[in-house]
């Protein structure tokens, strides 16, 4: 019995430990997060009972923090898929230890994206009317469809890669064996099961990429389909997708750093991971800047007074502090950190990532709110200061996300053990074979004429 | 069966507690309570838009249909089965006879634990009294 346990655990004790061992830190984290969730819940109950008047929203600026959260959370959810699916397709071996952490981010944060819209409704009791009386000309319904698809596909993708690990936990026995037995779907670790699983994961990975791009494109369409100044822009689809991957990858770096520290995964999540993702993040920083530049230069050069009014309110008007703060956080701070190799350490990439995550929340805010201050007519009383209710709900959402994440790691391993092992056992040989296949053919049977006849 | 001596008394206690409201109400006589919606006494107001039996079962769908008819189709008269035409209006037709919803609608709704949101927006005539009835519309 002990032998079998030893065989299953092997040299990866650390990866199981966070499920079995519950330290003081866990309880402290859970109680702090739980308290914040309760605060958010209290804020929502207050809003539900008295109406949206408890927020800072007004007749003029009727969308604010909640819609910002919606776009922001859905943006974050893009990285998980991106990192795990794209790297899987590209056969990047270093993705193995981090793929589950990023997929989990996707699945959990996506729920809060959906939740934010529901929180924003004036009559949440009627939310199902959107399905009962669905009007498919409304971009909001496109969102409903694409987000539902995305949530389904990314949950499947997460679950598929979990099955072999669940089976391992089942074989280890213990109190929760019945639970793992149900979820492992009869996984016996046979050759044919492996082949099928690989095929299924490969299929889902390919499927999820177009879905992911659709999701954020459609989220941007909520704004781009209106005729409001600075929303009605053809560039919004790709601009939002780039911003989504940008903020999402940054948040995955933060998640990785936290997991590494909290669960002692130093030998699995290494500086090289931060370095590799950091380089990608730098490319995204530049791409984000390119899109932002393209968006605004078109406005400025066109010089349409309706658009320019909003533009100036961002550049030098009342939204300028927020605009320049978001620009600094998204570009000025992260770019040098990520570009200079000396700074692209774990600490450096984490600092850059936190800056980007904050900056991208502000970016969504700066896209949504200024447009509402003057829709073709300067409006009186267009000011917006979010109230405690909105901040509490934001804090509650983020805390609940972290809480769910923490609880998940109490039940399932956060590093995909079987994938890491597969990498250890087979990857080197596969990669070597792949590299050989790229190389120009050499060998004695190829009688190439030697150059210059010197041989 | 294991632990017979514990399980059976516990089951009896549980059932007793779970059915307590029924016992309590039977003993106190509340179970025999029958809601009594107050009908208008005025002779002219004796006839409803449809027969009593129909209204009793279908008043909910009838009101839903009326709502849909006025708001979405713009049809404001109802051809009743008794060949009469009625103006479709909760306020002006229904509540013209049943002036007080607390004495009519609520009688059964409260008894059955049904809540409806009609009166969040619509106004029944008695609601505005005491005090002068607010301005008469056109």
């Amino acid at each position, binding site marked *: 019995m002990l032998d079998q346990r030893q065989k299953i655990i092997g040299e990866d004790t650390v990866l199981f430990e966070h499920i079995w061992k519950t330290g003081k830190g866990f309880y402290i984290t859970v109680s702090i997060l739980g308290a914040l969730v309760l605060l958010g819940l209290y804020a929502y109950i207050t809003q539900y009972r008295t109406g949206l008047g408890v927020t800072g929203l007004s007749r003029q600026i009727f969308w604010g923090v909640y819609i910002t959260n919606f776009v922001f959370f859905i943006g974050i959810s893009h990285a998980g898929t991106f990192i795990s699916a794209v790297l899987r397709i590209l056969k990047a071996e270093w993705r193995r230890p981090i793929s589950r952490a990023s997929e989990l981010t996707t699945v959990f944060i996506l729920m809060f994206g959906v939740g934010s819209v529901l929180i924003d409704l004036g009559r949440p009791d009627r939310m199902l009317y959107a399905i009962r009386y669905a009007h498919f000309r409304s971009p909001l319904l496109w969102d409903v469809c694409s987000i539902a698809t995305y949530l389904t596909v990314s949950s499947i993708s997460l679950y598929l890669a979990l099955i072999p690990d669940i089976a391992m936990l089942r074989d280890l026995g213990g109190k929760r064996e019945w639970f793992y037995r149900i979820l492992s779907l009869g996984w016996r670790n046979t050759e044919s099961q492996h082949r099928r699983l690989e095929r299924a994961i490969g299929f889902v990975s390919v499927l999820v990429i177009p879905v992911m791009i659709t999701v954020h494109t459609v989220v941007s369409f909520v704004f781009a389909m209106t005729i409001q100044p600075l929303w009605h822009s053809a560039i919004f689809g790709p601009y939002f997708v780039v911003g989504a991957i940008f903020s999402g990858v940054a948040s995955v770096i933060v998640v990785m750093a936290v997991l590494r520290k909290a669960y002692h995964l130093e030998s699995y999540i290494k500086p090289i991971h931060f370095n590799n993702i950091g380089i990608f993040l730098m490319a995204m920083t530049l791409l984000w800047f390119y899109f932002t530049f393209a968006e605004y230069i078109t406005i400025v050069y066109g010089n349409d007074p309706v658009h320019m009014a909003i533009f100036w309110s961002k550049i030098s008007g009342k939204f300028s502090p927020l605009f320049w703060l978001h620009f600094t956080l998204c570009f000025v701070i992260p770019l040098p950190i990520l570009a200079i190799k000396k700074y692209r350490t774990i600490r450096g990439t984490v600092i850059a990532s936190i800056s980007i995550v904050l900056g991208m929340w502000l970016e969504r805010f700066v896209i949504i709110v200024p447009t509402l201050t003057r829709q073709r007519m300067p409006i009186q009383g267009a000011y917006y200061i979010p109230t405690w209710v909105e901040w509490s709900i934001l804090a509650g959402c983020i805390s609940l996300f972290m809480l769910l994440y923490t609880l998940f790691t109490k039940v399932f391993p956060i590093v995909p053990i079987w994938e890491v092992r597969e990498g250890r056992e087979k990857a080197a040989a596969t990669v070597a074979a792949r590299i050989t296949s790229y190389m120009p053919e050499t060998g004695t049977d190829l009688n190439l004429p030697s150059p210059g006849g010197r041989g | 069966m294991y632990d017979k001596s514990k399980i059976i008394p516990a089951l009896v206690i549980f059932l007793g507690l779970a059915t307590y409201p029924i016992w309590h109400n039977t003993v106190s006589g509340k179970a025999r309570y029958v809601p009594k919606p107050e009908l208008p006494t005025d002779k002219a107001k004796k006839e409803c838009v449809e027969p009593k039996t129909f209204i009793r079962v279908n008043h909910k769908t009838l009101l839903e249909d009326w*709502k849909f008819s006025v708001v979405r189709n713009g049809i404001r008269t109802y051809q009743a089965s008794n060949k009469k035409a009625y103006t479709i209006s909760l306020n002006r037709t229904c509540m013209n006879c049943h002036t007080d919803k607390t004495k009519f609608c609520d009688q059964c709704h409260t008894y059955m634990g049904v809540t409806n949101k009609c009166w969040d927006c619509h106004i029944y005539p008695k609601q505005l009294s005491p005090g002068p009835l607010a301005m008469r519309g*056109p």
Partner: protein
Amino acid sequence: MQFDRRGFLKITGLTLLGLSAKPGWEVFSKIDQPEPSPMAESLAKIRWAMAVDLKKCWSAKEGCRDCIDACHRIHNVPNLGTLKEEIKWTWTEPYEKVFPEHELEYSEENHRDKPVLLLCNQCDDPPCVKYCPTRATWRREDGIVMMDFHRCIGCRYCMAGCPYGSRSFNWRDPRPFIKKINPEYPTRTRGVVEKCNFCVERLAQGLIPACVEACKEKALIFGDLKKPDSEVRKALQNRVIYQRHPELGTKPKVYYIL
């Protein structure tokens, strides 16, 4: 023919995909199917419109609010007393804000600050209708853009879609803020959007809109555009007329005569 499970699933999937092609096409093609209504035919013979004669309006004593008060009284529009949660069906804005495209700097008459009455434009191609996820707002065949308070979920996307700012949202329960409730028209609950409805409930009784009736200067002219001899058609004849932002293609049906 023999089916295994995979084959069955494949065929089912393809069938579903095929069946969804037509509804999918209808969604994205431009034809907006009107809601089937038995009244459609008789309503389609009418096109309600309003003209605002600005000169007449400005001849009233300063600060005249007769039309606005009548509208808000009849429709139980609350007065919340703050700009933040303001609800308005009709209101005024200075001329230069309403028509920013008009050159006023060198024009002789100084009507830059004169009030212009604003209300829902009852567009022929209303943007708000497209955005509503539940069809709580839609266009009737006689041109009135309707609002179904029973169905509104309060997402406020119509407000984002309306380029005229004609829509208001109920940030809290409006009832305590209505001075005198008119029992003939419902109030609203918190969390729904509302706007001018061209007094559809009065039109059904053969009356003209409340604001038109209330105007002592006869500056508001209401009628059926499809009738050549209607008052509104006469008022528009041989006059310079403006609409708000006609370049947006919404085809507003509230005209301003100067």
